[in-house]
């Protein structure tokens, strides 16, 4: 905060982006809104929209001052920021998602306080995990592996995509997952992306791709794998070779000091070497991986041009997922934690094309 020249930090937590609030409270929350105000000097205050969330924050014990977050006035938030006099400048993490209902209140009630976006500040702070956080991520990785096992066991001709997801959800929730970000795509070479499941029934010869991301104790871990229902074809096997070489090149590049750009380039160079460079562009794919932790798509993004150096205990998913004419959209990705010497893989699941 001192470096950023801010006197306080407001961490905004809408229901789909609670990572910063979780980071400071440790609490699993349910309400539509939550927030934490952390002054540069002094104790933090949490704001919750539901009484059950108050209990959840108080149970973790990290923050003792828990107040209601009520619209339209947001009176408690304003009052807390004003404690000891209105600050000249505060940062708001996830400012880009703060609703006008709160943004307008801050403008009106704190007219002399400059509000700046502090999303990057928190992203960078959360990028390097503590040993405890890495341990939580390891536990989540075991759940992730089990979910993928269920995925494989469920695949057969005639089963619908949403039924596969149902079986995976059951396994993940049984093992304590709080949530799961899962995408799926079944079909042949025509598949260009993954989405939520549809009613399509899986056919013999299909490739079934999934990105399965359980959240355990707040921490998300992802696995990306492709399976074939039946005997893999020659192009499908060539696709596996291409993606595995790219993923391994990306993982081999991960070490402290190496930039996100370099990890992305290591993967893309494999595609270029084999004549598939155009399939590394935004027309066919999004990113070559990204950080993971309390948010499922964290900083840094693995893209050429992102010159963010990795640090020890950065957790990343390395996934060269994209479309190629070989076998359509193909996914293969493993999470890693950056160590002093390189990186450590977090999953034991074989990086292969599974035939079921």
């Amino acid at each position, binding site marked *: 905060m001192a470096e950023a020249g801010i006197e306080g930090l407001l961490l905004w937590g809408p229901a789909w982006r609670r990572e910063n609030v979780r980071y400071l409270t440790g609490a699993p929350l349910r309400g539509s809104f939550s927030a934490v105000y952390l002054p540069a000097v002094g104790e933090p205050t949490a704001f919750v929209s539901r009484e059950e969330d108050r209990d959840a924050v108080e149970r973790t014990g990290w923050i003792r001052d828990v107040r209601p977050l009520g619209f339209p006035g947001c009176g408690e938030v304003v009052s807390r920021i004003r404690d000891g006099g209105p600050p000249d400048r505060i940062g708001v993490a996830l400012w880009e998602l703060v609703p006008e209902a709160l943004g307008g209140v801050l403008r009106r009630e704190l007219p002399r306080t400059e509000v700046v976006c502090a999303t990057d500040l928190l992203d960078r702070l959360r990028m390097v995990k503590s040993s405890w956080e890495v341990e939580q991520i390891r536990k989540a990785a075991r759940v992730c592996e089990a979910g993928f096992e269920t995925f494989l066991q469920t695949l057969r001709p005639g089963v619908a995509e949403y039924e596969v*997801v149902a079986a995976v959800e059951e396994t993940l929730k049984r093992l304590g997952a709080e949530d799961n970000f899962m995408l799926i795509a079944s079909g042949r070479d025509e598949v260009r992306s993954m989405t939520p499941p549809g009613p399509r029934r899986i056919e013999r010869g299909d490739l079934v791709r999934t990105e399965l991301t359980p959240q355990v104790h707040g921490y998300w871990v992802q696995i990306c794998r492709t399976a074939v229902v039946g005997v893999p074809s020659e192009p499908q096997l060539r696709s596996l070779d291409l993606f595995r070489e790219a993923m391994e090149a990306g993982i081999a590049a991960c070490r402290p000091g190496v930039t996100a750009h370099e990890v992305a380039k290591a993967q893309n160079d494999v595609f270029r070497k084999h004549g598939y460079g155009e399939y590394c562009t935004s*027309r066919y794919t999004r990113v070559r991986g990204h950080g993971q932790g309390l948010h499922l798509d964290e900083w840094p993004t693995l893209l050429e041009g992102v010159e963010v150096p990795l640090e020890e205990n950065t957790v990343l998913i390395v996934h060269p997922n994209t479309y190629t004419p070989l076998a359509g959209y193909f996914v293969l990705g493993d999470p890693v934690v950056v160590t002093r010497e390189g990186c450590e893989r977090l999953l034991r699941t074989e990086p292969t094309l599974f035939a079921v």
Partner: protein
Amino acid sequence: MKRGLVVLDPLEVTPEEYAQRVRGLQELLRASGCGLGLIYGDVYRSGDLAYLTNLCLYWNEGILAVPAEGEIAFLTKLSPRVHPWIRSTATVSDLRSGQDLAALVEAVAAEHPGGAVGLVEETWWPAPLLESVRKRLADRPIRDLGGMVRALRRRPSETERRLLRQSARLAAIAVAVAASASGACSERVAAAERELRRAGVRDAVLWCDPRPGGAWTFEARVDWRGYWAHAARTVLTGRIPPKPEEQFVEAYQEATATLRAGVRQSQVEETVRSHTEGLWEGCSVEVVEHVDLETWGEHRPPEARDEPIHEGAVVSLALRLRGPEGAWWVAADTFEVHATRADRLTDHVPPVPVWRVEVGSGGRHADSHQRGDRAGAHHAGLHRGPGAGL
């Protein structure tokens, strides 16, 4: 998370009904002097988008642009690679992707130059996006349309009531399945999740709150084709003092008996208050219309929080109490409201809000609270198999 079945089924909601919904909004836009209406949504709150197009915003943010005349467009941060999927699951075909939503708004507004630009529920737009849109449309009047789409959605059509009944049925089944499962809360959530996802729900928000002695509260909010319903029950074991239990049961039953057209949340609260003397500090009641269930009613405009319930509304009634042991007691059902009564749509669980379970040598024995235990209905939840009533 919205990771269940996403499907556009013309047998459930006809293309004509979706078109009629858009026309209804366009009429309101014209009447308010707007050439273009903009509806912001994100993965958590996108019911208006689903109502108009069946669109499932499964991640990130987007804006539905509805011109007073002409074709609607969806402005999205999602990649063009998912456009074919969106077109196959929603009734909008003009899709425009980009990371700067304000720039996309500027472009679409230029195509509809007449009149003001209306923002639906401006108060819930992200403040920086709103500021950016205002700058880009500096030469156009911008108007807050409030809950214009919400107002259309509050009176469900017969088609929508069918979907709401199914959603309520599934929410109740989730509670019954959780009750039938054995083991820890994670086992109950897993069993309910599987049933719901296999039945084709789009989203399920399940909560199992354990308490000492193996008792628990289970709460399910379920999204079936974009229509949300709610059910919850509390199961007690051991020596819970009778006073809060009796008061809780009475309060819930009186509250549900109060529901009918014209009643306000404050009246239901008053009824509950009269039955929870001494408990009120830790007790709350929520009456939430189906259009607001997606967000627990927390995005309701302040003026809407105590509006009288109208005939034909589908609402959730939930009673919460922080029990003497510190854990939460929750009872919730979904109702269809008529002039003189409210029909409980979550009737796959018995009406009693609290179930008692005694653990004996022969396994669990369920004995729901005496009041309201009709024809042993409570046994449906606790002794039938997980597939009961499916």
